């Protein structure tokens, strides 16, 4: 490795690369901060720019978008209660309450610092442990992936709000919606009702626009005229984070980064899963779980560190095995291939300098993300002071443009509208929307791995206990369920006990 570091640094530290990193970081942060515009959409739209570039600046530009997009998604989640990207939904749960409490800048800074830590952590994991971790990840087969999904579904309990039963019903709805489209195991259509476009299934980003962004617009109906303009002068938001808060952020940030790396190396999973796993874990380990959902700094740090720690981790299977860790990275692969680089371990021998330059570049991207984030934070924070009359239609236009751009079809805009109406009805019934999102994120993966595992084993469920990794995940699932039950028993006892006299 060391023999490659110096020549790689020479290839990386050029004015052109630094410039492209910064352009990528800026575009990624701003694009993902706009509701309706996701990181993957941004990478698709800007991919053609890289075709005239050589491999390193091309990858640096795309990595800039990818990493900064991880942070950018949290901006709108914090400011306007609308996640810019699916993986920022967990950040929204605590980021927006913090902002509403007049601590917008602080919330943005916590998200930025946690994102940077997670990003650098995963970049170092990629640099030092890449091939080893990739070999381990390659051992995780269909039954293990199913176990990961089941573990993911235990999170529903933590995001169900007042009623877990309503949360489970909402999750079932999300999981059912994920079944719409062509059956991945047989190609037969399911629940398409003869609508041709539906056999492709529903795009997560489009559903998210309806579930969170457009419904937030409809909720303007609940605002009284006096609430249209936020009195920012009264807020005194200096963005300060106390020592105590830094201390509380430390553990969830480190754990979140670790979870992000572990989730990121498993192909098929991504930042959304990681942020929810981390959020759920932080809540169960926190000394103040009651603060979660009401502006917990731990919640923001856990979600943000995890979703940015995925960025480096998804590159591990890509660069070492040629397997893209998630959809965005799959598109970035083309920037390498168009330059004649076919990723894999053999490329470390033939083009080691370029590979190490890319890996070192990821650290650099995160450093520039921090620097640009510090400059952009006060500007982003000003969004809350834009009058609702202007902001509301602009958000709608961005949402429509984003939904259209996913497949360049108005059908997706229609789907977003349907989800908006559904979300509004569910809101009236006090049904939490987050379990629906979780169902959408995990649905296809859960079902496909479940059915494929049983197909391989000819229907024998023994396949789910066939490896050490399966048992490790079973242990984690038992632990998660145990924690949920303990929490419920504690709550019940607390309700039953007479109030203490002071």
């Amino acid at each position, binding site marked *: 490795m060391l023999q490659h570091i110096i020549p790689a640094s020479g290839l990386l530290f050029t004015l052109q690369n630094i410039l492209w990193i910064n352009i990528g970081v800026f575009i990624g942060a701003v694009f993902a901060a706009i509701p309706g515009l996701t990181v993957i959409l941004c990478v*698709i739209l800007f*991919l*053609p720019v890289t*075709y*005239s570039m050589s491999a390193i600046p091309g990858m640096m530009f795309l990595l800039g978008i990818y990493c900064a997009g991880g942070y950018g998604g949290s901006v709108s989640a914090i400011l306007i209660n609308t996640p810019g990207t699916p993986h920022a939904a967990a950040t929204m749960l605590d980021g927006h309450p913090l902002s509403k409490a007049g601590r917008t800048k602080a919330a943005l800074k916590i998200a930025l610092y946690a994102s940077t830590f997670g990003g650098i952590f995963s970049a170092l994991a990629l640099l030092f442990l890449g091939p080893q971790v990739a070999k381990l990840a*390659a*051992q995780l*087969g*269909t039954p293990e992936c199913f176990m990961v999904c089941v573990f993911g579904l235990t999170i529903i309990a933590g995001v169900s709000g007042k009623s877990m039963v309503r949360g489970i019903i909402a999750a079932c709805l999300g999981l059912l919606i994920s079944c719409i489209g062509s*059956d*991945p*195991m*047989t*190609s037969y259509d399911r629940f398409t009702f003869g609508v*041709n*476009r539906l*056999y*492709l299934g529903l795009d997560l980003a489009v559903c998210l626009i309806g579930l969170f962004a457009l419904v937030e617009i409809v909720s303007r109906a609940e605002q009284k005229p006096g609430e249209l303009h936020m009195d920012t002068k009264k807020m005194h938001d200096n963005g300060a984070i106390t020592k105590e808060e830094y201390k509380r952020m430390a553990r969830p940030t480190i754990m979140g980064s670790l979870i992000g790396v572990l989730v990121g190396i498993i*192909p*098929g999973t991504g930042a959304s899963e990681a942020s929810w796993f981390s959020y759920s874990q932080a809540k169960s380990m926190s000394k103040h779980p009651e603060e979660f959902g009401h502006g917990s700094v731990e919640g923001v740090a856990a979600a943000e560190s995890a979703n940015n720690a995925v960025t480096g981790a998804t590159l591990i299977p890509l660069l070492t*095995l*040629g*397997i*893209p860790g998630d959809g965005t990275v*799959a*598109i970035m*692969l*083309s920037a390498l*291939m*168009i330059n*004649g*680089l*076919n*990723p*894999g*371990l*053999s490329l470390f021998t033939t083009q080691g300098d370029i590979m190490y330059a890319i890996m070192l570049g990821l650290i650099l991207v995160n450093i520039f993300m921090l620097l640009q984030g510090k400059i952009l934070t006060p500007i982003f924070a*000003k969004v809350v*002071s*834009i009058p609702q009359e202007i902001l509301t239609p602009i958000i709608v236009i961005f949402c429509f443009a984003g939904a259209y751009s996913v*497949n*360049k*079809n108005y059908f997706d805009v229609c789907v977003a509208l349907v989800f908006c109406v559904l979300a509004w009805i569910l809101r009236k019934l006090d049904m939490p929307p987050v379990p629906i999102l979780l169902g959408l994120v995990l649905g296809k993966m859960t079902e*496909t791995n479940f059915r*494929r595992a049983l*197909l*391989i084993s000819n229907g024998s469920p023994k396949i789910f206990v066939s490896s050490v990794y399966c048992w490790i995940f079973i242990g984690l699932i038992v632990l998660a369920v145990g924690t949920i039950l303990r929490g419920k028993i504690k709550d019940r006892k607390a309700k039953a006990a007479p109030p203490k006299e002071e």
Partner: protein
Amino acid sequence: MKKSIRRLCLVLALVMVMSFATATSAFAADTWTVTCPWAPDGVASLVSQKAASLSTEYSKDITLVAEAIKGDAATVNTWVLDNEANDPSLVFVGEGLLSITATMDPAKLQFGYEDFVFVENLYSSVFVLSADAKLEIENIEDLQAYVADAEEITVATNGATGSEAFLAAALFGSMGAGDALKLVPYQSAAEAAQAVSRGETDFAVSHQSQILETYNQGGVTVVCAFDEGAIENGPFAGIEGVGQYGYPYFRNRCFIMARAGTDEATVAALKALYDDILADEEVVEWLHDTMLLEVDTMTVEDVEAHVENVTNIVNEYIDIVQPA
């Protein structure tokens, strides 16, 4: 407040100026949009982008702009509805749409071969069958011996009813092992390659480039190529073709189509442009070395023969891939 409004106006003005400048430059040439109905990171999209980036070098009159709109038949349906003869728009179709979907699920298609006019074939790809290295199957003879004794044969494929699934069904079906064959669909070719290397399935069918890294790491052996003869170039040179043993096969191809009724002269000019690009040394080298694909320019007759061959294979082995 006034300050922020002024700033907003400034941003707006900047956006408008940039948009106008780009718009002016974009409409300067005769621009043809090439729609790829598959994933933007897929083989077809990549080659299309490469061709588009070279179009201005080879033509003063035609500029190709590549775009990828994932959606398969749905995207092509929309394209057919939105475009008329002589519209400056091209689309990709392959045997997947013209032979497989057209046979298995014709209701999904709102178009037929007659709605297009053939321009050129972008590339040709030879699929390969790889086996779990532990099975020690190196060639077709080893495979025949293995199949003769096997009670169950599992093959990892990308998708449930794609070209890979039909090639596996055709090979093992013609070996008389159709009943023993179990197709295990994965979400991507990379996943399928990993599945065979960790022993989850016995075999996998994939493009050569998709199995290369797993092969390099020793997880799989490459048994045979789905082609008439042996592979001639690249890392898999010398691997036998199933055609040598009389088994059915087809290559994966990507046809560039214009809307039916487009002027012959225009189609000829487009074909000439693509032929020039595909003859470029750099493109040929890139297709061979990185993508493990071949330049394979075709005529209308070749296309029709290809579609017919694949349709015949689909009809013969449909019961193995999708039993009633």
